[in-house]
């Protein structure tokens, strides 16, 4: 994960991109928390909604793995099928962790 390259893809300096990633990590954690709560209470609509938000923000910054996982979660929420959902949340959490790690090394 090269922040310089990801930033350049968006026409941004590395420092500008890092600022966005900082904001992203904090909002992504909140979204993941919402997603987990929604999953636990089997609120399908809330599942789709929080996954949708994560899909967009991660996709915009070029974190494609997380964006793909979020899409999977959103799709599952839309068809009221939460089988294997705990694993998806797990993978998403790992991806956010990776981004956070990379961020801490960049600062």
């Amino acid at each position, binding site marked *: 994960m090269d922040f310089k390259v990801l930033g350049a893809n*968006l*026409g*941004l300096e590395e420092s*500008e991109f890092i600022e966005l990633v900082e*904001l992203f990590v904090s*909002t992504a954690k909140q979204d993941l928390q919402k997603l987990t709560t929604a999953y636990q209470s089997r609120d399908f609509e809330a599942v789709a909604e929080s996954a949708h938000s994560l899909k*967009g923000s991660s*996709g915009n910054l070029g974190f494609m793995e997380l964006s793909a996982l979020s899409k999977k979660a959103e799709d599952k929420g839309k068809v009221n099928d939460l089988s294997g959902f705990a694993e998806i949340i797990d993978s998403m959490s790992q991806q956010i962790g990776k981004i956070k790690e990379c961020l801490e090394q960049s600062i």
Partner: protein
Amino acid sequence: MKIADQSLQILIVDDNPLNLKLLETTLSKDGYKVLSAGNGPVAREMAVAEKPDLILLDIKMPGEDGFQVIRQLKKNLATTAIPVIFLTGVSDMDTKLQGFELGAVDYIIKPFHPREVLARVRLHLKLSIATNSLIASQANKLKQITEAQTSMLVTPEMYPRAQFGVYYSALNEAGGDFYEVRQISDDIFGYFVADFSGHDIKTSFLTVSIKALLQQNSAPVYQAHESMQMINDVLVEILPEGKYLTACYARLNRKTKQMTIVNAGHPPGIFVPSEGSATRIDMKGDILGIFKEVYFGSHTIDVNPGDRFYLYSDGLIESSEEKIVWSAGSNKLVAACEDAKSFPIQEAPKEIVRKLFNENVSIHDDIVLLGIEV
């Protein structure tokens, strides 16, 4: 002196703080003033109070959604003419059509690429300028020309942030050479040097028109070559037969550290990097004011603080008593620009002219030399 700021203002409305921040960074880098709102009611209040030139509006928001916001904006006379582009994560036809029916001018699908956003924003601002404000701009034209007449040539003191120096000498009061420096936004400046095909009162009068045209056509939405294109379109209509001008226009963005130079049949600009040697920026380009279909050379250079550019008229390299031909004069000029590195930019042009002309040599043409420091 108050400097006319041509910044265009864009209101972004999105409940996602990350999207807001990404759009804000992208748009402000390109010279726009950005207002941000996290929800519909705040956005509507800002739109009424600030009258932005364009609104980027997220559809899916908690509470008042984007559709409701557009509906309200269009109902209100104060905001009805502001173009709205909506942002949507959904690409289904119904959503798009509903947006258009409510009066949006375009949509952008999320996740969006910042460059796509910039391209669409530019397009719609241009359309908006062309359609909505045509009447206003025509009415302003006369006023601008009157204002321009009172201050024909700008001085470095008027625009300290433009960081330029100039040597200007006209054979008579109605000189055929002309230069102009414009502040386009906080970090973007335009520098213009031109030479008319003759020297007489009419020419001097035309420089006033050029100044007004530059003012009208150098907004941040226009790329440098687009500004020249539009100025040419008007000049073709208003110049007397046989009259034309050559010009060089440089647009410097200190934020993105890029300088774009457009050449319209003018002697090539000179680039003096703070490290490295000076070079001519050779480009082909048609003259202004004769042909409707024109090609202007355009060249963008990545620059660093301390780098310098020089724009000048041909009098500087052709008119000494030594009957110097263009190519030899040009090489001398490149060397003189290089040698002037140690002088502050405000003094460098004078120093270069002193080097090129012995003081006792009389000057047979108008001369303008404009030096710019990044």
